[in-house]
């Protein structure tokens, strides 16, 4: 089984890169040459990635969430899967390269450094933890996608303001659509993160009786959750729209990234298992 896992580990970045290339080619050329093939490639990549994750889970007797490079491969999968669903629902295919490249980067780093880890802490074998991590990762992929659409919104906004009618103008969907995509991805991310937080709160006292609620990871996540919650509420109640909401989404994403870096690599957090 291990050789198959190793083979898939090296195959995945190649698949992501190929899928990205097909999306990128169509984006640059404005042709619809790969319009159906690229979606098929995306689907196959996801399928193979799912097989890879399942094989790892069975072979190493734990879900692939026990170290940062396992998290990266799950994140790559979650981002691509979320995008795939979004593309199926909206049939907007022009934004694919901007999202698939992120999955490629995560997968590439994971492929290089992922260990074949059999022995993990007992706490990491808990089922509730598995659901907590998966929902949190899906939530963060929602925020990542929201941030990508926000970034594209800002780029198109600037191009329109400065009368630049290049690739971005010609290929991207309109500002309102980008805003909606960003908003709905953020809402989905927020809901999933809320579930992750609730599960975390239920599971935390039993796993770590002496936990401090001033843990940098908890504070960071709380901040991200509050920020997205405030953004969603402001849209629903005071009808905040456009750039303000977009800037909020990007800020939330940056804080989420910083919080992950700080809690995993710099600060001493109970979240640093590895």
């Amino acid at each position, binding site marked *: 089984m291990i050789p198959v896992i190793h083979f898939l580990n090296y195959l995945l970045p190649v698949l992501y890169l190929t899928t990205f290339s097909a999306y990128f080619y169509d984006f640059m050329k404005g042709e619809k040459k790969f319009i159906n093939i690229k979606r098929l490639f995306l689907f196959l990549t996801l399928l193979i990635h799912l097989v890879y994750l399942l094989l790892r889970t069975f072979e190493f007797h734990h879900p692939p969430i026990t170290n940062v490079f396992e998290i990266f491969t799950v994140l790559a999968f979650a981002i691509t899967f979320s995008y795939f669903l979004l593309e199926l629902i909206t049939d907007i295919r022009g934004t694919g390269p901007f999202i698939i490249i992120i999955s490629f980067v995560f997968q590439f780093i994971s492929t290089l450094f992922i260990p074949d880890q059999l022995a993990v802490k007992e706490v990491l074998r808990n089922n509730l933890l598995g659901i907590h991590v998966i929902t949190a990762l899906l939530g963060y992929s929602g925020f990542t996608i929201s941030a990508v659409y926000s970034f594209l919104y800002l780029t*198109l906004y600037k191009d*329109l*303001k400065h*009368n630049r*009618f290049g690739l971005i*103008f010609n290929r991207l*969907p*309109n*500002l*309102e*659509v980008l805003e*909606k995509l960003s908003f709905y991805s953020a809402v989905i991310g927020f809901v999933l993160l809320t579930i992750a937080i609730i599960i975390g709160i239920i599971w935390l006292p039993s796993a770590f009786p002496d936990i401090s609620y001033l843990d940098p990871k908890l504070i960071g996540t709380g901040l991200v959750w509050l920020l997205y919650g405030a953004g969603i509420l402001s849209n629903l109640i005071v*009808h905040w*729209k*456009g*750039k*303000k909401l977009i800037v909020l989404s990007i800020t939330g994403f940056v804080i989420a990234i910083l919080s992950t870096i700080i809690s995993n690599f710099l600060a001493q957090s109970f979240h640093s298992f590895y």
Partner: protein
Amino acid sequence: MNLLAVSINHRTAPVELREALHLTEEEIRQIIQLAKDELLQEGFIISTCNRTEIYGIPKEFQLPYSRLHSFILGHKKPVNASEENFQNFLSRESLKHLFGVASGIDSMLIGDNQILKQVKDSFLIAEEMGFAGFMMKRVFDAAIRVGKRAISETAISEGAVTVSYAAVQLIEKIFSNLSKKTALVIGAGETGEIAAKHLRDKNIRKLTITNRTKERADKLAAKLNADSFPFDELNQHLNKFDIIISATSSENILISKEDVESAIKKRNYNSMVLMDIAIPRDIDPSTSKIDYVFYNDIDSLNIIVEQNLSKRKAEIPKVEKIIEEELDNFFAWYNSLQAAPTIKSLRDHFESIRAEEVEKNINKFSSEDKEKLEIITKRIVNKILHHPTIELRKTNDAGTGAEEAATKMGIIRNLFGIDKPGSNNEDKK
């Protein structure tokens, strides 16, 4: 194939000459009647603001182009036109030119798809006048096919190539659904009207017109099922519109930066699109600095127009390929009109009908009669086809015009439905 074409168009003649030679539908009908009497067996005439063209199969085998030139010129008031103002085509070149026209690559505005409708209308007039015979119908079908293929298989008609349409294209990059938006058009002149029509075509939720002369605004509003308000109330209403297109001939700025700042505040910073397609400009260009305000003037819209025109030009080789394919198809069909293949097709067609009927009814006959049935039915078919076969063979003889032969063979093929899908002959293939 003796198809002649002469054309005066935007490449060969200045606008004054094209205008002078433009034919109304009534004039086209008159000229067709005369052409039928004097010069052409069949044909059709296309006349638009950018071209006047006559296509046809001459009665005399070698009809000089100059006769067609003077024929066109003779029916309009005297104009200064020389031989250089005409393009002349024969056979494949005539057809190629027509295909180029129908596909929009010969248009002044490359990819203009209105021309396809104009070609259709021209043919309908010819058909009504009994000027479009068997050959012209095939020519017309092929031309329309080229036009449709050019639109569906290439991007020759994609993208806005007029300033007012570019404004709408740009608006659609900001708003996703115009049926939820409100728009104001300032100025009820020609440009304003075109812009308003584009917005109406895009199902804008609410369209409002304002103009210095209120009557003109009311008239246009009534025409486009829109609202209007007096021009001096412009500033009070600015905040109510998501889209404002200004196209007046005013010498002064009508909407200042302060006006827009006040309007966007009242709109709770919901995006506002300002399209200034007037020269000189109606809206202060510094409004572009206000957040959530998208301001464009005629120069920026022209950038889009130029880009789209370049893209359309890049599609010309693809359209030319379609034209070549359709020319080959047409001449493959035309060459099939030679007598021998037609005789064979005709005989095959009848034989297949005979065989089918015999097969259906064979069981109604005794075994000794079955052979007789075969012989008798074959004899009937041979007798029926004897005279048509002789007549068709004669068309190969010297002295029979190629067009006459083609017409005869075309009539036979048409009458018996030999080329139609589902015909007995076709089924057999």
